[in-house]
């Protein structure tokens, strides 16, 4: 199992943002995605998750192997913590939520409606979703936002357990997670406005 990205170019809102992105992520590996604000991390992850087509380049792995954790957690405020998680477990056909609840220290909050959680508790619930997808590759967009230090450690442990079990994770983050991980900086891949990917498939390709 390997996620190989080759010479990828992606756009956001019609504007090419990245080009020439190439890296590989193999089973058992964690890759940290770095880059300043607005450099295109979210855009890249959305593309890999299959939410938007690339402008150019290839991705070796179908979106079916990927679990995507976005900026927003997709929680339903009127459903309880357990109901929220159970829903995703059923959608992904795994059905089992006890371990996820345990790993993210949510068990005692099980019956609480999601609206009554604090920011960090909501985030923990959003991350627990990853465990119930049962998918091998995790794409995470700033997963530790709003987490306190204990929770960050809890998250790092979950990632470690996941890759130890043959999974892989690609994590966009600005902070240090304390994981043994390779780092991929997309700062260097900024799309050049006057050439390359910016033109592929763009409206004005024919004008140049």
């Amino acid at each position: 199992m390997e996620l190989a990205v080759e010479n990828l170019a992606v756009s956001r809102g019609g504007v090419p943002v990245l080009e020439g992105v190439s890296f590989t992520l193999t089973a058992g590996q964690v890759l940290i995605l770095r880059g300043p604000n607005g450099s295109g991390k979210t855009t890249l992850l959305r593309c890999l998750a299959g939410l938007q087509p690339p402008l150019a380049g290839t991705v070796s792995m179908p979106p079916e192997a990927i679990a995507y954790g976005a900026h927003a957690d997709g929680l339903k405020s009127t459903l309880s913590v357990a109901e929220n998680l159970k829903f995703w477990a059923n959608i992904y056909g795994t059905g089992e939520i006890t371990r996820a609840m345990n790993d993210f220290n949510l068990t005692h909050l099980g019956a609480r409606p999601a609206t009554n959680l604090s920011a960090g508790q909501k985030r923990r619930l959003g991350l627990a979703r990853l465990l119930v997808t049962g998918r091998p590759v995790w794409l995470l967009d700033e997963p530790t936002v709003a987490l306190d230090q204990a929770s960050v450690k809890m998250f790092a442990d979950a990632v470690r357990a996941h890759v130890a079990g043959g999974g892989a994770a690609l994590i966009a983050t600005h902070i240090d997670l304390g994981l043994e991980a390779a780092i991929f900086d997309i700062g260097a891949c900024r799309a050049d406005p006057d050439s390359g990917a910016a033109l592929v498939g763009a409206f004005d390709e024919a004008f140049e």
Partner: protein
Amino acid sequence: MPMSLWQYANPVKFMALSAKVLPWVTGLTVLTLVTGLIWGFFFTPGAVNFGTSVKIIYIHVPSAMMAINIWIMMLVTSLVWLIRRHHVSVLAAKSAALIGLTMTIIALITGMIWGQPMWGTYWAWDPRLTSFLVLFLFYLGYMALWAAVENPDTAADLTSVLCMVGSVFALLSRYAVNFWNQGLHQGASLSLDKEENVSDVYFQPLLLCLAGFVLLFVTLLLIRTRSEVRRRRVQALEMRERMADG
């Protein structure tokens, strides 16, 4: 410490007192209501224009009066909550709503059933009927708002504000509807200052039924308010539990 009515706004005192009076009120309710209805149903003659259908009056009029009076009671208790922050007061308003709604529905249903033989139609856009329909909507809205807001104190505040504003608009629509259509419905024949009151044959059992409905309201109100106080207390305890385990 000066004794006053307000002390019963203390939930503990309220629970203690209401537990004592509840059996008596219940007994009295059953007695009055059963006598009144049996008297009205079995032992009154038919009337000139109405025939035997006049017997519907023993349910129709008391329920119609209660429907209005309960809303007024809710308005008063809501104001007490807004001004003096007595929880029992607003919980009483919450408990009264479903009773008021039932009374409104009963008045509407009996009226509609009566309308078919009397006016030849189940429904007419008569002012009294129409304003009852509006009242029905107000009850629904009030209860829906209670159900929709999660925090009990927020819900109490919001429903009280709605009750105040709603009362003003209910009055306005009553006037509007009057102006709009003269209507088919009977005038007020119960008023005491009128010469031509309904004859005693109908009037006495009707009074008894009226008393029965008032007592029924009090009984149900006590039962329901007690439930609400308990529910609120359970919520508070559950919150403590939540605090205890973070």
